[in-house]
């Protein structure tokens, strides 16, 4: 599978591991949060491990684990709120990304998965997500255009570009 890593199309060379599957001898693996919690010592010892977290997780819980994690997988999905009407895009993982980068200084990969369409990518990039797994049917080459959506921003975010406030008055 192709994905976007650091604004370029790249091969997905990580292995997503089922909870029951044995640990492969080599390669970077991504495990569920449950497995990470259950087998933390063994996984730390093996190294080259990432964890997939749900949008509801308060990422401060992972604070002490961060040095051992090569990758954290964040989930963005459309949800269907009650009682009726259209789908709503769940933006909680934008906050998770910013906290991981800005508050906890996480240096590994932040990977976005889920219902990712082109127009959600620019803000992901700004929040510090550097690997994007496009949804089925989205051409990664085409999705690269998302990085050109805006050349300026009013806020400083995890991408550390100077805000317009700072550009106006240094």
């Amino acid at each position, binding site marked *: 599978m192709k994905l976007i890593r650091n604004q370029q199309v790249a091969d997905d060379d990580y292995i997503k591991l089922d909870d029951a599957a044995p640990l492969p001898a080599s390669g970077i693996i991504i495990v569920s949060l449950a497995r990470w919690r259950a087998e933390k010592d063994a996984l730390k010892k093996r190294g080259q491990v990432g964890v997939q977290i749900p949008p509801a997780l*308060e990422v401060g819980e992972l604070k002490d684990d961060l040095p051992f994690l090569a990758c954290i997988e964040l989930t963005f999905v*459309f*949800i269907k*709120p*009650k*009682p009726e*009407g*259209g*789908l*709503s*895009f*769940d*933006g*909680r993982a*934008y*906050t998770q990304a*910013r906290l991981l980068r800005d*508050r906890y200084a996480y240096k590994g990969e932040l990977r976005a998965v889920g219902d990712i*369409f082109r*127009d*959600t990518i*620019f*803000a*992901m990039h*700004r*929040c510090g997500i550097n690997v994007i797994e496009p949804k089925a049917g989205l051409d990664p080459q085409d999705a690269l255009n998302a990085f050109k*959506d*805006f*050349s*300026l*921003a*009013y*806020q*400083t*975010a995890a991408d550390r570009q100077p*805000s*317009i*406030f*700072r*550009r*106006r*008055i240094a």
Partner: protein
Amino acid sequence: MYRYDNYDKQLVNERVAQFRDQTRRYLAGELNGDEFRALRLRNGLYVQRFAPMLRISIPYGLLNSKQVRMLAHIARTYDKGYGHFTTRQNIQFNWPKLETVPDILADLASVEMHAIQTSGNCVRNITTDHLAGVAKDELVDPRPYCEITRQWSSFHPEFNFLPRKFKIAFSATQHERAALLTHDIGVRIVKNPAGELGYTMYVGGGLGRTPIIGQKIRDFLPELDLLSYLEAILRVYNRLGRRDNIHKARIKILVKDQGVPKFTELIEAEWAQIKNDPNLKLRREDLAHFQKFFRPHTYDKAAGAEIHAQNPSANPAFATWVQRNTWEHRVPGYRAAFVSLKPRSGVPGDCTAEQMDALAGLADRYSFGEIRTTHDQNLLLGDVKQADLHALWQALKPLGLATPNIGMLTDLICCPGLDFCSLANAGSIGIAQELSERYDNLDYLYDLGEIKIKMSGCMNGCGHHSVGHIGVLGVDKEGEEWYQLTLGGSAANDARLGDRIGPSLSRAKVVDAIAALIETYVEQRQEDERFIDTYRRVGIEPYKARVYAEELESA
């Protein structure tokens, strides 16, 4: 007023290009319906009963004449020749074609306007007192703070997909005119005992299905800490706000579920982590940069002496208009002049392209080229020389914009209702028209005094019915339009929600029922007591008895 620099221009132009491409991809089948919906909404584009509806942002209700002319152009070129001013100081067009929306946005960008975040689950237009900058009881002009907040909240990468819409209002006066306590965040600009400027913060106000009055969570926030505190509130809300049910997704429900003390603790804990972030801390030079756009106009120092050039009492109709539709201004010899968008039989808030063009000319001539929108769906020329009022009145009259009813019963607000909106259960425009016809005797209207009627066609409460002195809510009863009446609401300093008077009423009975409420007031009032004060004194029973008299008799 604020003028775009090259940064603002570039961003807005990039947004137009982005939306043009999104529309193209949607029409080409590259974006699915749910994806495009999430995108078009944040550009103000709804799909309504008959056509898309485009909502255009008017930041804190301030327009210049060039922008008003552009709105007239849009009304003529892309719509049916009129627009509709809303309770959030914006304007809506009800008949544009989807394919033309990118062109409309490009036209808007050419006059420093946009439709960014006028809908969708994101931070909406920042609103404030329509008298900002001219009000006598104002501590400081709130608009520089509004503009700073507008910029900070525009395309904020973390808060693009909140649980639900998010509305922020500012006020800097003792007598509150911005309905702070009905907003997700209400910011009151205050001074502390040491004489330093800052903010009292209110969170969790909102109308709609579960109307709640905002709660104070901080007495005093230092002036330079505005953005870090807003960021803390938004972050806690983005993390913890409910997403499983749209009726429970506003921040008011989070505040209610957590309780004010716990909620406040969450905000303060988050804020403690970011309050010293240099990227969020405002600097004195930032404030100065924004303040310079809102310096007082060059007022005519002699204006105070010219007041008696015409004797208003010579023309009673003019004197009435001055009394009802103009407001005191902090500079001697000037008044703020309301432009009533509530003519007899009209649709509250509607304005034609011809009226807009004419108003732009009047603004240039009499009010430093600026026009304001109010959250009561009227317009305002903020800085008119008293000596020019007569000429202004004469110009407004033939345009149908001089109905002397500001603050009166017929200055009611209502949502578009079933006539346009796909969410509505019932019509509201028809009732507004019927009321304006029934109460067109000005002397009687003035005798009744200040009565705020607010009507919504459904629970979402766009017409703010919960805080009307008289609230009218459209409900669906087996496919028929029925109406629930409430009494005693207020969005001012004494903000509170109205009380339900009883079972809902049919369309045929609702206007008579409102009339019964008015009659009860007239019978019960003491001297110059206002409608709302009489209600507070005597309680709901006499009103209830009168409205349901027929039912009680037949029972």
